């Protein structure tokens, strides 16, 4: 009896324990969403807005003080160089030539689909107060612990339509510099464009590029320089692209937007005896009022070019560009 009773009791207890244990809810386990096949956009719209707001504050502070040292927290690369030069110019000209306006309110966001660094996104801003063309801001985050910086900006040409791009919630694919499937690889695009800038219509690639205000302006400035130098010397300009574009973001139509940096060096060699009186801006940059033998201006250019997909009859189009003197030497 005792044994059987004990056994029964033990069995009963066991059953009860097991039953209670079975009733106890299991510990919840993390059930993360699956890793997406395509990386999500690098930032959310809110994050981009925050970045832009922060950038606006920084620019506002720098512009107010015309102090380029205030810019580094949010401005870097060509943008920092150009902005610094503009501050110099503004100071030299008693603010008659103020820094160009850079709106920081986004009209459109072109966000990269990436989870690596550096990350670059484009922001099409609203029109500035003077109703100039909108700017395309290039924001770059080089490292995880770095902030997004304004790497550069371009002033959109008049009446130039933006290619269709993916919504910011989706993000745009990031293409490699040598990505195929385009009329030209991103790297080649910059090379070809430089060639066109250099040779004009003589360039074999001239036909591939739609006319744009940037090239027109560069050519006009070059012509002006040449004419102003006249027989007093020679004026030459070279256009050199960076080895690789900063970034290339795909567009919805299969094309891409290539962001690149060019360096334009405008060299004026004066024949002996000739002098060039430098304007205040250059004077400020060089510390000299005149140039007797050579006058070299280095332009930092930011170009944002739309490259249609391969097989398309569309032309490559410079969407926006900035061309600004960032360094001057005079002898």
């Amino acid at each position, binding site marked *: 009896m005792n044994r059987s009773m004990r056994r029964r009791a033990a069995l009963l207890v066991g059953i009860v324990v097991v039953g209670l244990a079975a009733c106890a809810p299991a510990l*919840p386990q993390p059930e993360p969403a699956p890793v997406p096949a395509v990386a999500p956009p690098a930032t959310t719209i809110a994050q981009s807005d925050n970045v832009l707001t922060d950038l606006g504050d920084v620019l506002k502070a720098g512009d107010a003080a015309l102090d380029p040292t205030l810019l580094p927290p949010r401005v870097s690369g060509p943008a920092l160089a150009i902005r610094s030069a503009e501050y110099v110019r503004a100071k030299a000209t008693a603010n008659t030539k103020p820094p160009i306006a850079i709106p920081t309110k986004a009209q459109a966001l072109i966000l990269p689909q990436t989870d690596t660094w550096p990350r670059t996104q484009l922001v099409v801003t609203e029109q500035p107060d003077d109703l100039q063309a909108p700017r395309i801001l290039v924001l770059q985050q080089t490292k995880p612990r770095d902030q997004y910086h304004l790497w550069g900006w371009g002033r959109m040409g008049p009446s130039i339509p933006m290619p269709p791009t993916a919504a910011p919630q989706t993000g745009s694919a990031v293409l490699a510099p040598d990505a195929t499937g385009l009329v030209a690889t991103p790297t080649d695009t910059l090379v070809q464009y430089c060639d066109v800038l250099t040779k004009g219509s003589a360039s074999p690639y001239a036909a591939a590029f739609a006319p744009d205000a940037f090239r027109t302006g560069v050519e006009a400035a070059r012509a002006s320089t040449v004419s102003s130098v006249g027989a007093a010397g020679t004026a030459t300009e070279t256009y050199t692209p960076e080895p690789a574009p900063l970034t290339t973001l795909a567009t919805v139509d299969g094309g891409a937007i290539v962001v690149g940096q060019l360096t334009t060096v405008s060299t004026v060699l004066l024949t002996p005896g000739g002098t060039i009186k430098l304007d205040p801006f250059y004077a400020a940059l060089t510390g000299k009022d005149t140039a007797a033998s050579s006058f070299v201006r280095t332009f930092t250019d930011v170009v944002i070019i739309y490259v249609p997909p391969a097989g398309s009859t569309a032309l490559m189009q410079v969407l926006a560009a900035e061309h600004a003197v960032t360094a001057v030497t005079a002898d």
Partner: protein
Amino acid sequence: MVKRLIIAAVGVVGLVVIGLGVASATVWRADDVLVAGTAGGPHTLVTAPGVLELGGDPVTVHVTVPDKGTVTLAIGRDTDVEGWVGTEAHGQVTGLQSWHELAVTGVKDTTPTPAPSASASASASASAAAAAATPTPSPSKAAADVATATDPAGSDLWVAQATGKGSATLEWPQQEGRWSLIAVSSGASAPHLTLAWPRVVTTPWLWPSVVIGLLLVLLAGWLLYRDIRRHRQGLDEEWHPVTTGAVPTVLSQDIEAIPVLTRRQLREAEAARSARPAPRTGQVAAVSPPLADEQVRTATTPVDAPPLSRRALRGGVSTQTSPTGSVPAAPVPAPVATASAGATASAGAWTPAPRPAESPAGASPSAPATNGSAPNGAQPAGPVSAGPVPAGPVPAGPHGTDGAHGRPSWLNASGHAAAAPAPAPGSDEVGPSSSNVTSPPAPEGSRSAVAASGAAAAASDPDGRGVGSASTGSRTPAPIGGSAAAGAVAPGARPAAGASPAAASTPGPHPATVRGATAWDARTAPVPGGSSAEPPDPHAGRPAWLAPTSAGVAPGPSAGGSRADAWRRAWGLPPTEDEANPVTDATDEKEDGR
């Protein structure tokens, strides 16, 4: 008591169930918030994707550091957090260790550059020395952590962040995607991280329990109510019947003969009563006057009211005393009168002349006749009928029979033999109920019918007829005989009923009761027989109306004598008691046979 206990138990169970249900929704209700935390560990904590959504929607992250250092909470995409943390040593929260503890996996510093670690260890040695006596490795580690714990606050990577001194709190509504939390203490101490999720706490047992409990309680209440109600009503209903009074009296006399009426019998009696009322009376009344002599008339006058006689029958039963009492009186002075009255009545009803002849003759003949008709019952019947008849004639025999006869005569006069019997039952029932003769007859009739109206009544009829035929061939007697038979029965019944009352007065009633009993049981027969002599009282009771004086014997004779006398006088025949007895027996037997 057991029933009540069970009911109470049901109610208690219901209350308990309700209580349990309520408790499940209150006291035992699960926590609304699931809180899990970490203790100690690295300065940088990172949650794996999915951990933030592990326990519910929104998660509330709280981090504290004991030294009031700066702590930062930030949430970003898992890749961003990973990117930000990089190769630093940190703790990764991978889930729940238990319900209140987070599982933390340490991730060592994978920084390839040795330089920082070296410097860290260098600085660490100092801090370590001060901080703890632990061996170099751990201090260096801690130092490394401290050294590399960069405050992530303000990074563009974060979607949400919070920074505080000593503590910080961040609420994170669930969002699509893979999100990670990074908690960094840039101070000297490790952060204590807690994650809290609201839990959807359901109370599935509340309402079912309450409903079931209420049902149980209601059930218990209903049962209790019903039980109580039954207890109250049950007694009232069960004990209402009037029979109670009658029964005990009867019992007192004869244990064996218990003329307890069944409800059905009562019902039937009622029906019978209601069935026939006035006619008899009218007839009787009419009858009595003519036959009665002056004395008889005088007697009759009282008798005139046949109803009275019936009452007497019933009342005889119930109020017999008076009748009985009267009976005795009647016998002596007015035996003749009563008899004459009865005779007159009967005669009046039918015809005086024939009866006398019949009654005397009829009595004896009736017996034979009945015999012929019904072997068992025949004799009894015969006797009964005869008894009654003779009883009527013979004072002694008549006791019961006489009364019966008298009644029967009325009844007969009224019509049905059944009527005759009716009085008896009626008397039983009626006796108590009222003095109305009518009512008694009904029962009797019913009884007679039940008993075997065919047998008894028929027998009686036949008897009567036979008697009639035997005696004079006139039917009048027959009816009388029948009535007598019935009456005999009736008397018995009456006596039975009335017996109680009568009992006190005289033994006569007993016999009567016996008869009545017999009528029902048929056993009484002997008794009646024995008591038959006494029965006269009841009979007398009827006559009693007339004569209040002595009871018992007198009435019997009187009653029996009244009729018999009337007849015999009319016909010049001497009264015979012998017949009376046989008659009673016969009646009993008849009834028995029934």
